[in-house]
């Protein structure tokens, strides 16, 4: 019989919030809501990392996923103008997909539940916390080549993303209708409007409470 204190309440709460928000992120009608739920999932994962005392990774997770990836995703949702999608009626193919997903889930969870070797592991962590300094030393000494390669990959990805998403020449027959206001944020403010420059901040104070 297990004691009540044996049940990892904190972990179960984090896991429940993360899983529910993940399900929401995959099933909501409104894509922006999906994106926001995804953020919650990422935060939940970061909390799990903290729970596993992997501080550095947890904060990096928040910085990269919440601060960058999620923002990119919501930006893309707005740029592609499909915040609201019509949730297609449950089709046969999506049922097949669900079936496959459940099968995968079963095949992953079943061995875990039945495996005797996992239970033999000590139920507490052995190692001390990962010091940031140690991570840095590892990164700059043992993992320096992967680090450089990663830098190269990120640079290439940045250039690639810019090139792919760059608008083609307007002369080429781009069948786009009139630009949408979401896309237009740049061009509205890009126009050399004198008012933007001339309005000094003095006026801005009057509106504050």
């Amino acid at each position, binding site marked *: 019989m297990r004691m009540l204190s044996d049940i990892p309440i904190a972990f179960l709460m984090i896991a429940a919030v993360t899983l529910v928000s993940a399900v929401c992120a*995959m099933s909501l009608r409104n894509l922006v809501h999906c994106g926001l739920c995804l953020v919650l999932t990422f935060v939940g994962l970061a909390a799990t990392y903290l729970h596993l005392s992997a501080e550095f990774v947890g904060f990096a997770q928040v910085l990269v996923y919440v601060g960058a990836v999620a923002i990119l995703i919501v930006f893309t949702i707005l740029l592609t103008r499909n915040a609201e999608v019509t949730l297609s009626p449950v089709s046969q193919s999506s049922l097949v997909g669900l079936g496959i997903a459940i099968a995968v889930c079963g095949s992953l969870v079943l061995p*875990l539940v039945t495996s005797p070797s996992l239970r033999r592991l000590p139920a507490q962590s052995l190692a001390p916390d990962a010091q940031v300094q140690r*991570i840095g030393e590892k990164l700059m000494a043992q993992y320096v080549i992967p680090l450089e390669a990663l830098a190269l990959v990120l640079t290439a*990805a940045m250039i690639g993303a810019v090139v792919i*998403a760059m608008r083609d020449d307007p002369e080429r027959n781009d069948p786009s209708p009139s630009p949408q206001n979401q896309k237009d944020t740049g061009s509205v403010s890009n126009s050399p409007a004198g008012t933007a420059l001339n309005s000094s901040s003095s006026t801005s104070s009057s509106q504050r409470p």
Partner: protein
Amino acid sequence: MTPLHYYLIFAALLFSVGLAGALMRRNAILVLIGIELMLNAANLNFIAFWRYSPTANELVGLMFVLFSIGIAAAEAAVGLAIIISIYRHHRSTQLQHVDRLKG
């Protein structure tokens, strides 16, 4: 302390949720979100195994996750750029419309 297989089951469930989303939804962005979830589930596995491994001082799992996060950032940027480009071309991000490469 939470036993290791709790984390593994959690990661498996998260993976399955991502997979289900990627399989069931038609929108390319949602599929990408599903893929991100799967990637994160894998990361969670790495962290969990690192924490419980007898050689945790080597930080192998941690390093793997750090690099994986970096790669995921690149992947998301390029993936979303491709989605925007597809949207320009097809006026849609529904994946069933993007099937030019078929037999």
